[in-house]
C-alpha cells in the first residue's frame, strides 16, 4: 500500500498532464466542426485524431529531447536548431536513390533507411558537441546551447539558403509515417509509442538513466556516491540531440522539404520548455519523465487548437494562449504553496 503511494507521488506530474490532456482533448473533439457536423463516427474521430497526432508528435519528440537535459538540472536552448538542421539534412539524404551520384544506388528501401540513420547521426553529433562543451568545457548549459544553436543555424542555412528538397525525396515513406494503421490508429502515435518503449524505458532503468536523475537531484551527492556523473550528463545531451533529430526527420515527412527557419526553431525550443513544465518535469532537475513530457506537449498543442474550434477571434488567440500558459505553468511550478519554513523558499 505504501509503495503504491510512493509511485503515485513520483508520477503525480505525469498523471496531472495526462488528465489535462484527456480533458482538453475531449472538449476539442466535442467542438470540432467535422464531428459537430457529421456526428461521432469512427471515421470522423480517426481523421481528427490523425491530424492532431501528426502535429503533436513533432513537439512531443522535442519535449522528450528537452526532458533528458532538464532532468540533469540543465537546459538545452538548441533543441529547436538541431530539429531544423536535421530537417534540412533529411531533405537531402532521405531519398530513394541514395548514393546514385557516387555510382552505387541503394534503391527505394535501403536508400531512405540509410538516409534516416545519417540524419539521426547528425542529431547525435550536435548533442555530443553540446555535451562536450557543457561537461568538459564546464560552461553553463544555457549560454553554451545559445552559442551552439547559432552554429547549427549557420550550417543549416549554408546547406539550404532557400526552402526546398531534392526531387527524389522519399515521399512514399513520409505518407506511410503519417497514415493510419488499420484505418484508425495514427501511425505517428504508434511510432511515438515504439520510441518510448524501446528507448526511454530501458534508459530509465539503466544505471546511467538513474545517474541522470541523481545528478539532477544533487550533483555533489551523486559525485560522492561514485555515480558516473560525466557519462550520465554527456549521454543526456546525446539523447537530446537524437530525439531532436527524430523530430527533424518527422517534420520532413510532414512538409516533404527542408527549411533553415530560425523563427520555427525558436518557437519549438520555447514550446519544448513549456511542454516539459506542463508535463511535470522539474526545471530544478531530478524529477519527471519523458512520458509526462509527451502528455505535456500534447496538452499544450490541444489548448492552442481549442481556441480554433471554439471560434475565438484570431486576434485574441495569442493573448488567451499566453494567459493559459501563464496559469498552467505557474500552478505547476510555484513553490510558495509547498514550503513549510520560510527559509525553504530560498533553497
Amino acid at each position: 500500500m505504501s509503495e503504491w503511494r510512493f509511485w503515485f507521488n513520483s508520477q503525480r506530474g505525469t498523471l496531472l498532464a495526462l488528465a489535462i490532456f484527456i480533458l482538453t482533448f475531449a472538449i476539442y473533439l466535442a467542438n470540432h466542426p467535422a464531428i459537430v457536423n457529421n456526428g461521432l463516427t469512427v471515421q470522423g474521430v480517426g481523421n481528427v485524431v490523425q491530424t492532431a497526432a501528426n502535429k503533436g508528435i513533432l513537439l512531443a519528440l522535442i519535449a522528450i529531447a528537452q526532458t533528458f537535459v532538464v532532468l540533469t538540472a540543465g537546459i538545452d536552448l538548441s533543441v529547436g536548431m538541431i530539429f531544423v538542421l536535421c530537417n534540412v539534412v533529411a531533405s537531402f539524404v532521405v531519398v530513394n536513390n541514395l548514393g546514385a551520384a557516387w555510382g552505387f544506388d541503394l534503391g527505394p528501401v535501403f536508400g531512405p533507411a540509410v538516409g534516416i540513420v545519417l540524419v539521426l547521426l547528425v542529431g547525435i553529433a550536435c548533442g555530443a558537441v553540446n555535451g562536450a562543451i557543457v561537461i568538459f568545457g564546464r560552461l553553463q548549459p544555457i549560454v553554451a546551447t545559445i552559442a551552439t544553436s547559432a552554429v547549427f543555424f549557420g550550417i543549416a542555412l549554408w546547406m539550404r539558403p532557400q526552402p526546398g528538397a531534392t526531387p527524389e525525396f522519399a515521399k512514399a515513406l513520409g505518407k506511410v509515417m503519417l497514415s493510419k494503421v488499420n484505418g484508425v490508429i495514427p501511425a505517428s502515435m504508434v511510432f511515438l509509442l515504439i520510441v518510448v518503449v524501446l528507448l526511454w524505458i530501458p534508459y530509465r532503468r539503466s544505471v546511467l538513466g538513474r545517474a541522470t536523475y541523481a545528478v539532477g537531484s544533487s550533483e555533489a551527492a551523486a559525485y560522492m556516491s561514485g555515480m558516473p556523473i560525466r557519462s550520465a550528463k554527456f549521454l543526456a545531451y546525446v539523447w537530446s540531440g537524437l530525439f531532436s533529430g527524430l523530430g527533424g526527420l518527422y517534420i520532413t515527412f510532414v512538409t516533404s522539404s527542408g527549411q533553415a527557419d530560425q523563427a520555427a526553431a525558436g518557437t519549438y525550443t520555447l514550446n519544448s520548455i513549456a511542454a516539459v513544465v506542463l508535463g511535470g518535469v522539474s526545471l530544478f532537475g531530478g524529477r519527471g519523465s519523458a512520458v509526462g513530457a509527451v502528455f505535456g506537449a500534447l496538452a499544450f498543442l490541444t489548448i492552442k487548437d481549442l481556441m480554433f474550434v471554439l471560434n475565438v477571434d484570431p486576434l485574441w488567440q495569442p493573448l488567451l494562449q499566453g494567459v493559459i500558459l501563464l496559469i498552467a505553468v505557474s500552478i505547476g511550478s510555484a513553490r510558495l504553496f509547498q514550503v513549510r519554513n520560510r527559509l525553504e523558499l530560498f533553497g
Partner: protein
Amino acid sequence: MTDQTTDVPVRLSFRQRLNVPVVTAFGCIVLLLVVGSIYSPNFLSPEYLLQQLKVGAFLGIIATGMMVVILLGQIDLSVPWTVTLGAMMASAATAYGPMGEVAAIPFGILCGLLIGLLNGVAVAYLRIPSMIITLAVNAVAQGLMVAYSGGFSPQDSASPAMKFIGAQSTLGVPHAVVVWIIVGGLAVFLLTRTTFGRAIYGIGNKESAAYLSGVPTQRVVVAAFALCGALAAFGGVLLAGYAGKAAQSMGDAYLLPAIAAVVLGGTSILGGRGSYLGTIAGVILITLLQSILSVMQIAEFGRQIIYGVIIVAMLLLYGRDQKLR
C-alpha cells in the same frame, strides 16, 4: 614614501587585481578593430566608430537591465516583447495629441515597468522559476500586442522627442550614445554605491544568507525585475525613435545578444559576480563583431557560425565553472 607603502596590510596579487574577463573582452575589441582596419582603413574613422556606438547603445541599454537580473542569478526571457511593447505603447501615446506626445516616453517605460513588476512578483513571492514565468509573460505581452495592433505593424509613428533621442545627433555625437552613457553611469552608481546594489550581489551569491542579514530580498528582486522591464521598454522606445515607428517582433533580435553581451563581459550566469565595465565591453564586442562580419560580406550562414564559435571560444577562455570536488 617607503613608510607609507608598508602600511598597506594586504596586497592583492597582479592577477587578483586584474579583471581577466574585462581585459580579455577589451583585448578582443582591439583585435577586431585591428583585423578590420587591415581590411579597410575606414574601420578606425570616428564616423564609423560613433555609428557602431549608436547601434550598440540600444543593445547596451537593454543589456543593462538584463545584467541586473542575471546578477541575481535569474534570467528575463520576456525582453523581446517588452521591447516591442515599450515601442508600440510609446508610439500609441503619440497619436493622442500634444499631451500624448509629451507622455509618450514615460508611458512606454511605465508599461515595461508593469511587465517587469509582474515578473518580479511571480519570482520573488510565488517562487516560480524565472525562466518559466518570464517565458509565459513574454507570450502574454505578445498576445497583448497582437490584439492591440491587429497583427500588423501599427501606423502610429514615433514622437519628435523619441526621434530626437533615438535617431539624431549633435556635433556628430548620436544622442542614443549620450543616453547610454547616462544609463550606464546610473547603473554603475546603483550597483557599487547603494545598498540596493550590494543587496543584488548578495542575493546572487546566496539569497538565504542575504535574507538572514536583514536584506528585504523579495522587494529587491521585484525592484530588479521592474528595472529590467523598464530598461527593455526604454530600449524599445529608442529603437522606435531610430526607425521612426514600432514594428512587430522588433525585439526578437535583442534577447540572445543581450544575454551573450552580459556573459561575455564576465558576469556569472549563476549570479553574484560581474561588473558593468564588462557588460560595456560585451556590448561593444558583439556590435563590432556583427558589423565587421557584415562589412566583410561574409554570407549570413558564415556569420552565424563565426558568431557562435567566438562566443564559445571566449567563454572557454574565462567563463568556466569551478571543477566539482
